[in-house]
């Protein structure tokens, strides 16, 4: 039980990295992105292909650690591209339009992955070493430990960013009212680009850690991880980073404990559904969300 809980929490840390990206985008643009899972997966699958078959034209077989770096960089690039081509024109339209657009992007990327890398799962060696630690009876592989560490670092960095930097304040202002932010001289388009790049990079990092933690990754796998992340973000409140972390840890824990305890398939999904709907019914804005997230 405790072992399953701990393992589940480490998966939750991975979801939280994706969910923080979702929250950043929501804070910056009032847009809910359903594409973060696939944005992360695309870079990591590409890196795994390069690791197995060599970088096209150069023939280098990149090392596991580099696969993670590639996933982060490609995630950031895809994020930037999506922001420029798709989301920016939708910034002033009803929020449902942007939601549908990110859904289309998720679908497109998943099918593109299927086209490029096939439907089979790709073996993902750990990018952070092959060591393990024992904790309350749980054996945690390196990617799981690093997921927790990375989550702590990212959370702290973002806290500094929003409370100590001018640009961070600018992001908050843009989330409050983009028109007013622009009038005050805040480069709003740069804010938009920033949140998408940061979210894409975080998704890439999460894909590399989650993918290797589960031993391998196939197209559409990250859709599932992305959904868990989304569930966590909604539970925590769409515009609260701390809420997203708590929500995702809760989702990971439930998946670990319920999924491991009951034989019947789908019980974990049922539990997550109950948690999401229950939280929203009691508190539409989520645990820590502001009124704007309701």
């Amino acid at each position, binding site marked *: 039980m405790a072992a399953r809980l701990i393992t589940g929490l480490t998966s939750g840390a991975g979801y939280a990295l994706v969910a923080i990206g979702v929250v950043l985008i929501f804070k910056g643009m009032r847009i*809910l992105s*359903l594409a973060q899972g696939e944005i992360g997966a695309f870079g990591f699958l590409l890196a795994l292909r390069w690791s197995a078959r060599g970088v096209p034209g150069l023939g280098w077989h990149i090392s596991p650690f580099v696969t993670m770096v590639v996933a982060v960089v490609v995630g950031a690039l895809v994020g930037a591209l999506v922001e420029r*081509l*798709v989301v920016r*024109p*939708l910034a002033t*339209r*009803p*929020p*449902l*339009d*942007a*939601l*549908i*657009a990110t*859904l*289309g*992007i*998720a*679908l*497109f990327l998943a*099918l*593109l992955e299927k*086209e490029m890398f096939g439907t089979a799962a790709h073996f993902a060696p750990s990018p952070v070493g092959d060591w393990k630690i024992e904790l309350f009876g749980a054996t945690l592989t390196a990617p799981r430990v690093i997921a927790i560490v990375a989550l702590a670092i990212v959370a702290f960095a973002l806290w500094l960013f929003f409370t100590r930097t001018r640009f961070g304040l600018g992001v908050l202002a843009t989330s409050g009212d983009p028109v007013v932010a622009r009038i005050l001289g805040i480069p709003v388009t740069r804010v938009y680009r920033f949140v998408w790049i940061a979210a894409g990079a975080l998704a890439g990092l999460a894909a590399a850690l989650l993918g290797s933690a589960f031993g391998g990754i196939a197209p*559409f796998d990250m*859709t599932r991880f992305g*959904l868990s992340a*989304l*569930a966590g973000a*909604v539970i925590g409140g*769409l515009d609260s980073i701390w809420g997203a972390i708590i929500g995702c840890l809760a989702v990971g824990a439930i998946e670990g404990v319920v999924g491991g305890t009951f034989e*019947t*398939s*789908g*019980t974990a*999904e*049922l539990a*997550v*559904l109950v948690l*999401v*709907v229950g939280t*929203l*019914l009691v508190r*539409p804005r989520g645990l820590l969300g502001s009124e704007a997230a*309701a």
Partner: protein
Amino acid sequence: MKPSQALALFAAGGVLAASFLVGDVKLSILVGVLAVAIAALGLDVLVARVGELSLAHAAFFGIGAFTTVNAGDRGLPWPLAILAGVVATVIAATIAGLPSLRIRGLQVAITTLAFQVFAESFLFTRTDVTAAGRELVRPPFLEGDVQLYCFALVCLALVLALRHRIAVTKASRSFFAVRDIETRAKCFGVEPGPTKLLAYALSGAIVGLAGAVFAMKAGSISAKEPFLLFESLQLVAIVVVGGRGSATGILTAAFLVKGLSQFVTTVPIVDLEPDRIFPISAALLLVIAVVAFPAGIGGVYRVIGRLVDEVFDPAGARPDPRPQPVDPAAAEHAAALRDVPRAVRLRVPTPALLVADAARVEYGGIVALDDLSLEVRRGEIVGLIGANGAGKSTFFNAVSGLGPTTGSITYRGEELVGLSPARRSALGIARTFQDMGLVRAETVRQNVLLAQTWLVPTPAAAGLFGLGQSVREEHDLRRRADLALELFGLGHLADVRLGDLPYGTTRIVEIAASIATGPELLLLDEPSAGLGPEESHALADSLLALRAELGMTLVVIEHHVPLIARVCDYAYCLESGSLIAEGRPDVVTQQPQVIASFLGRSDAATGGVSA
């Protein structure tokens, strides 16, 4: 009939006739396409009319299909099996729609997503649900591809008819009201909760029928791929690429996404297998459509239709967006608007129509209305003045039932506190809002009909099928709408989208919509805001006319003192939720506390009164 409509009918007939010529195998593919198209039309009811996105429609589709097969396998005759499929889906969709009673928009989309994930991993993994190995016995006359295709077409026709009924009855108005003005619509008698559940149920019924068509086609279902999240996303793609709200566009998109790949063997230029390139193109199209063509294929059809009409009728008369001079007879006819059945409990008229006694509104620790007491007498025009945040609009909310109020507010002796907003409207109270309480995306007539929702006791669901008194009621409503629009010289604008009209005209439409309900007491919140000097002057005339010709009593919130001075018999001045002065306007505006709180030292504002 417009030339464009004739052309559309002709084209639809041509496509239908041609579809029978494609051969049996292809016809069977088309049955599958129609099933998906019907599912998409069901999703569209939610997306276009209520503004909510469901990502669980593939799961609903599956529930419909599986239930139909299961029911058939248990020996139910086929019509009952289909009915079982539809009913099961209605129940599932209504349950999935329950969270929308409490949350909105994005969050609802997420809960439906969670429902989809739950359905595919919990429900569709059980053999007792998935109907594996079971079989539906088709009646002999449905054996054969042509017969099945005709059956699917009949189902499509049913769905299109249902969508048409939704569009022209109370259901449509309730839907767009909860989509755009949920809280305010309560004053019109629209109940958001039941309305949303009705939308989910209707959407579920259509998708359930789609599932039944799928089941009839297959007989038995072995794979669950058509019911997974991926297909939910494809349904969204079909609706958006086709164009939200456009049935023809959605049918076209369904064929492009689901059918075309089976009709071509190879895709030119890229030279790829169609079943690999088509899904990914659909995803790309979805993104492009949302970003660049939100109206979708349906939008393209509309543009073509407009062009055709312009060729045949180049003048293309466009109505003057301003109110026209009113036929004096219109005012006489409009007296019929007062003919509204009222609750018999109302007491004998007293001089005081509306009496507030220590009415109090508090929220978030702020006292917005501090034990306010005032009265409005029959036939008066009463002005309500005061600084921003003094509690004027809060008082209107308290009277119309849009906020928790304590104390007492009586209307003709009837206690209002505790009554629903719709009930208060039915007693004869109507109001306007400072910033538009109507739906811009709909026509003037639809909005005026919406305002009268509480006049129709028949539920929207019954209205869809013309049950009970609904046909007579609907006819009566339209007559009232026409009378009200004529009264304000707006008759020629009835079919113009409200959002396409100038601001000043939209304000008049809002007043016309409240008059259409035949109120005795009309609450106007800053009717002159945003109007120019001439328009303000004309507004004052119509307010006086409303009293003279329709015998109405008015309460007017205004900042524009000359208007108050001209039309009001009596004025109340509020500050921080309390009354600080009352009396005739010229007296009130001279009082030192009013000048200090509201008018200021300058003579600019009082100039109108003393002049």
